[in-house]
């Protein structure tokens, strides 16, 4: 199954520190709690890091909490447009948040404190993970769970389109 994975520089898995081989399978350690982790497109905004790679996961693939898990995976191709695009991504989060803040203030149903989300997201550029999270929190504060989901979907759409990722 084709998926995507964020890595630390050098195709190093960000949390285990294990470098994935340039060719061949990356096998996970034995045991039910172990596996290689990767993203379907809709998981990407939860896992930002320096490098983005298209990867292949070997079956069976489990759909976990905002991630895909498999026994083994392998690198296919690096997405060159990342992290070049991360400043743009963060700016897009700022733009959507600005519109939400303006709309909420116009509606008059949110206090001035809500506008603080705009300052928060501006200040957190260019960290894409932080900006995505702040934008999602702001959307939730404005429009509840539907707002949150909409913002996260917009983030996914932005990434899929800008990075030309195949998106079902």
């Amino acid at each position, binding site marked *: 199954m084709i998926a995507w994975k964020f890595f630390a520089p050098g195709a190093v898995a960000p949390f285990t520190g294990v470098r994935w081989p340039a060719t061949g399978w990356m096998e996970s*350690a034995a045991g039910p709690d172990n596996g290689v982790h990767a993203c379907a497109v809709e998981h990407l905004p939860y896992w930002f890091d320096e490098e983005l790679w298209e990867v292949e996961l070997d079956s069976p693939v489990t759909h976990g909490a905002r991630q895909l898990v498999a026994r083994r995976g392998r690198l296919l191709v690096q997405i060159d447009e990342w992290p070049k695009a991360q400043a743009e991504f963060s700016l897009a989060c700022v733009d959507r948040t600005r519109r939400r803040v303006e709309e909420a203030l116009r509606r008059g149903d949110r*206090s001035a*404190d*809500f506008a*603080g*989300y705009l300052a*928060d997201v501006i200040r957190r550029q260019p960290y894409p993970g932080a900006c995505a999270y702040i934008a999602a*929190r702001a959307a939730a*504060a404005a429009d509840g769970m539907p707002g949150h989901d909409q913002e996260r979907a917009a983030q996914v759409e932005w990434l899929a389109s800008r990075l030309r990722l195949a998106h079902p």
Partner: protein
Amino acid sequence: MPAVAPEVLALAQDSALLEALRAGDERAFLELVESLHGGMVRFARGFVKTDTAAEDVVQDTWAVVLQDIDRFEGRSALRSWIFGILGNLARTRAAKDGRCVPLSALQPDDGESAVDPSEFHPDSHPRWAGHWAKAPEPWPEARLLSREALAYIRDAIERLPEGQRAVIRLRDVEGWTSQEVCEALGVSEVNQRVLLHRARSRVRREIARHVERRNP
């Protein structure tokens, strides 16, 4: 990734060592003493009042070890067993010397938070209750290894409550595994982790204080 877990490897090495010791191999014994001595004195010093008392207790420990070595069944690692004896002797000596050393020192008490709550936004914050009010600044890692910084760390460890000090010494200074520490101190995995967590948090605060003082 090692093919064999470190604990299993250690026990295999232990059994060769035990055989040598029981056969009267003096070189094996002296190598064992050499490898453990510094750590034993440091460990004992965490319980007793003086360097001399620590050295006495270490000598007494070797006497007990030699007395009981034929009966040691190897169910725990050798050094865990040795440090277990050492800990008991050190605590007994400390009590005799008038240092009040309750066994409950190895039970973590409740409610100590890792970071001063004032470093986070309070519940009243409209957006970020529970998040960093001011995010920590990266420490220049070279600075941490300076003689001065290491002295702060050593100092901070020495001022920890006894249970926390014992655990962080064995884990982070001496590099023992958590299993070995639990065996030596007679604490559960969970308790050991809580003590380690508290100890590391307190030491971190000390380091942060000093690093931030230099870079206001």
